């Protein structure tokens, strides 16, 4: 089965062609990061306009690069939730047009679930149940995955997403957008124990909170003008990594899983990867995360999630809707 995946939930326009769930024939991403860098964040109107301009060339190029024509496709998978509504509509409209013209089955995919599915592209031996952690600019979710497309929420952020905390703190520190990779890089030259920024205590829950950390850091910045920026970056990053790793390991123990999938833009953070590798070894857990290009928003993961959904007999009609909000498993 050859699936075309389409992703336009936020600031990347992406199309990918996937054969039989693991053979990635193409994965093209038109990033708007350069465009948004001047704003210090994603500008939604700019994003929607850019998707409109980018979608047709990207679709054609994805099929060309796969060495195919649109006639060779067997199905179309598109991220229809959650995301910026104007942006989602561009991808979903394109997917519907292709489905109609070429008579292809259409399946709408949850963008958050698809992030976890990026791990299925690289590993074919994954066994349920698994725990999934999605961490990105807009999301922070822990869910128990009991089967394909079957997710039970375990935890979430009660305020800010970790990527949002990275971006806002980076902006306050005068660092460029996006904040995550910049802080990741600075932190390699810094001491993660230099400043003891607070870790939120959410008791026995598996939730996260990063708003208090952000506030503490802003206060610190205003009171310590001479502190080394590398040490601040490393200490701030460590507080986020601690919360993500400790809570995830605790949830893995509580649910009894042996495999943990980590995904989303923040999963590309090198310190997070290293700490998860360490924690996996210490706790007898197999903790996986995709390579960086599959951590960012991309259509390969949409095609993968679509592949498994279609294999399970799921599909949507041309009435497929878009949803701004949609937790894992919905």
């Amino acid at each position: 089965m050859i699936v075309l995946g389409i992703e336009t939930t936020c600031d990347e326009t992406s199309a990918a062609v996937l054969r039989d769930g693991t053979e990635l024939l193409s994965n093209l991403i038109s990033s708007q990061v350069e465009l948004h860098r001047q704003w210090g964040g994603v500008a939604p109107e700019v994003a929607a306009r850019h998707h409109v301009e980018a979608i047709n060339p990207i679709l054609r190029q994805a099929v060309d690069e796969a060495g195919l024509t649109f006639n060779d496709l067997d199905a179309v998978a598109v991220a229809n939730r959650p995301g910026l509504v104007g942006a989602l509509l561009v991808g979903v409209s394109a997917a519907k047009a292709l489905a109609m013209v070429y008579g292809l089955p259409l399946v709408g995919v949850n963008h958050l679930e698809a992030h976890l599915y990026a791990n299925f592209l690289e590993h074919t031996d994954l066994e349920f149940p698994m725990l999934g952690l999605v961490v990105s600019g807009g999301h922070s979710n822990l869910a128990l995955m009991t089967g394909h497309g079957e997710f039970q929420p375990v935890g979430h952020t009660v305020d800010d997403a970790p990527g949002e905390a990275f971006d806002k703190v980076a902006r306050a520190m005068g660092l460029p957008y996006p904040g995550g990779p910049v802080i990741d890089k600075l932190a390699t030259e810094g001491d993660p124990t230099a400043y003891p920024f607070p870790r939120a205590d959410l008791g026995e829950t598996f939730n996260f909170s990063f708003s208090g950390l952000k506030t503490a850091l802003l206060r610190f910045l205003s009171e310590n003008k001479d502190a080394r920026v590398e040490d601040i970056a490393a200490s701030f990053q460590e507080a986020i990594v601690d919360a993500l790793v400790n809570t995830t390991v605790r949830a893995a123990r509580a649910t009894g899983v042996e495999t943990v999938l980590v995904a989303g833009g923040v999963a590309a953070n090198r310190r997070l990867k290293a700490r998860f590798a360490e924690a996996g070894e210490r706790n007898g857990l197999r903790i996986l995360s995709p390579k960086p290009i599959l951590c960012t928003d991309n259509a390969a993961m949409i095609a993968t999630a679509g592949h498994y959904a279609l294999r399970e007999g799921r599909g949507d009609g041309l009435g497929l809707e878009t949803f701004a909000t949609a937790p894992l498993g919905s």
Partner: protein
Amino acid sequence: MSAIQNPKSKIQNPGVHRSVFAPDPLATERIGESLGRRMEPGTLVLLFGNLGAGKTTFAHGLARGLEIPTDIQSPTFALIYEHKGRIPLAHMDFYRLNAPDELDTLGIEEYLDGDGVTLIEWPEIAMDRMPESRIEIRITPEAMGRRLEFTAHGDAATLLSGWNLESDESESSTGE
């Protein structure tokens, strides 16, 4: 679109002003909860304050006062989150917007004309589109805590007058 008015030319009722000191985040949340319990369908709340001022904490309290059973996550990324409660809450955040015309496709007028409570963080960029009747809240850090200043315009003024608030320090009508 009746919601789009120039606020400056339309204000007729005197505004009501309140000022409260919150020594810690719990106090900020309680004040939010207390105001949330007073909310009526159609109320617009604008929440001003810099990063780290305590907007999130206040919003959590307001949501509790509206009997919203779930955590309200930051809408910075999604721009608008809707929550079901005693009265539905549309929670918006315009932090990421750079120009007023970026509001065009968000459909905020539908919320402003609707029967829910609308809470907007970082509303500065949208002020020309805000209806007259509204509560403005400004949170500023002080040495030992946070100063919360409330100003209500238009019909929303009734929500602030007669609001019994612990550690409340002032109630005044400003003639504007």
